């Protein structure tokens, strides 16, 4: 295949992965990923939501471009690890993580008003990264090195909660102790559990289908509350089945009178509507 040839050629280059080469690498990954979606329909959050995969890919590409900005902004960074789904990078430099934590602390104190532009871009980028990365934890775990994972996963969650609370402009209660982290309880049901994510996706699926049923059954739009709507839907199904039974009885009563000629019946039916 072409891709493997390209990879083989590149592996011949000796030397550490510089920033520029990592960018080229990400192009290969993107190309690889662009051909992957048809097979990769299951087992990710996008499949849970039944979002078209191209839409999910767009989101990843967006974070990819924004992460490259982050790299340029923060200057000299140690060579970054690569993500299979695009160059979502975690800075492996501990120094950088400290700076990021400090920036995020400043952000929560000002409740969203962020002092420096670099902090803003870094936080929004990392937040955007974390938003998408959080949705596919299974894939990230394999790529991020263990030390980074243990160190940054704790920060990841609380950073995501903060970003979500600041970007969503929700009421978020900040409880700040003397700790370097600031734990924010992001309201609006933004649980970051895997289970909760799956549950939320499932609930949204069910709600979408219930809306569809509501439009189908006459008189369900006016009703408030899911319980009554569901009762109405069940009543409708039962009434339809009873109607079929009633009509079949009437047909049976009518039946012996008519000589069952297909043409005549079709003609009579056509004349009715």
């Amino acid at each position, binding site marked *: 295949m072409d891709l493997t040839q390209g990879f083989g050629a590149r592996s011949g280059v000796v030397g550490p992965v510089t920033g520029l080469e990592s960018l080229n690498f990400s192009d290969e990954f993107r190309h690889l990923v662009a051909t992957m979606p048809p097979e990769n*329909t*299951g087992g990710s959050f996008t499949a849970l939501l*039944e979002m078209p995969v191209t839409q999910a890919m767009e989101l990843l590409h967006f974070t990819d471009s924004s992460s490259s900005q982050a790299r340029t902004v923060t200057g000299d960074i140690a060579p970054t690890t690569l993500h299979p789904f695009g160059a979502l990078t975690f800075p492996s430099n501990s120094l950088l993580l400290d700076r990021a934590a400090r920036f995020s602390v400043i952000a929560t104190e000002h409740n969203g008003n962020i002092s420096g532009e670099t902090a803003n871009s870094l936080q929004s980028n990392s937040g955007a990264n974390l938003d998408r990365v959080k949705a596919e934890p299974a894939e990230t775990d394999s790529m991020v090195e263990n030390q980074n994972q243990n160190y940054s996963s704790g920060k990841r969650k609380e950073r995501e909660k903060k970003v979500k609370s600041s970007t969503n402009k929700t009421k978020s209660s900040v409880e700040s102790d003397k700790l370097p982290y600031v734990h924010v309880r992001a309201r609006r049901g933004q649980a970051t559990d895997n*289970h909760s994510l799956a*549950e939320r996706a*499932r*609930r949204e*699926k*069910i709600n*979408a*289908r*219930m*809306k*569809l*049923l509501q*439009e*189908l*059954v006459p008189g369900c739009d006016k009703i408030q509350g*899911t*319980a009554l709507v*569901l*009762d109405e*839907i*069940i009543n*409708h*199904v*039962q009434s*339809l*089945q009873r*109607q*079929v*039974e009633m*009509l*079949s*009885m*009437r*047909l*049976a*009563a*009518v*039946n*012996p*009178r*008519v000589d*069952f000629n*297909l043409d005549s*019946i*079709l003609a*009579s*039916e056509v*004349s*009715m*509507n």
Partner: protein
Amino acid sequence: MASADKLINTYVPEKDVFALHFLQSLSNLRTQNPLNSPDKSIDRVRKIKKAAYVSMARAAGGTSRLWSRALLRRAAKDDNKSVRFSRRKRKVTWKISSKRKRSNQRAPVVEEAAERLRNLVPGGGGMETSKLMEETAHYIKCLSMQVKVMQCLVDGLSPK
């Protein structure tokens, strides 16, 4: 109709398809029992009802919809016939509705309604709630179409 219809596929054919299938099944019934009509009229009613459901299932999508498949299988079992299913590559998802990880998360209101729906809609026993509601929507559409066809037939055949 609305935006939800574009995402979830609930397409049923036009009335003519239903009418054609139903009339064919009725004429088959007629040829099965020639002039000697069965003694009990209730048998005739039952046969017509079954013919209605089977023709509806066949018109609505054959064996490609879950409820129609279950309905056809149920009907064929009574006649000791076998139904031919087309092999289509399907994504097999194992979501057993009896097992729960966290029972309180699954909206008990929705779940008990889903249980009632499962009893009504054919083939609803093994489906997850979201899939069940999709099938219910399609089933409702097909049922209303079948009711319209039968109403037209009865009106056309009844004595003026």
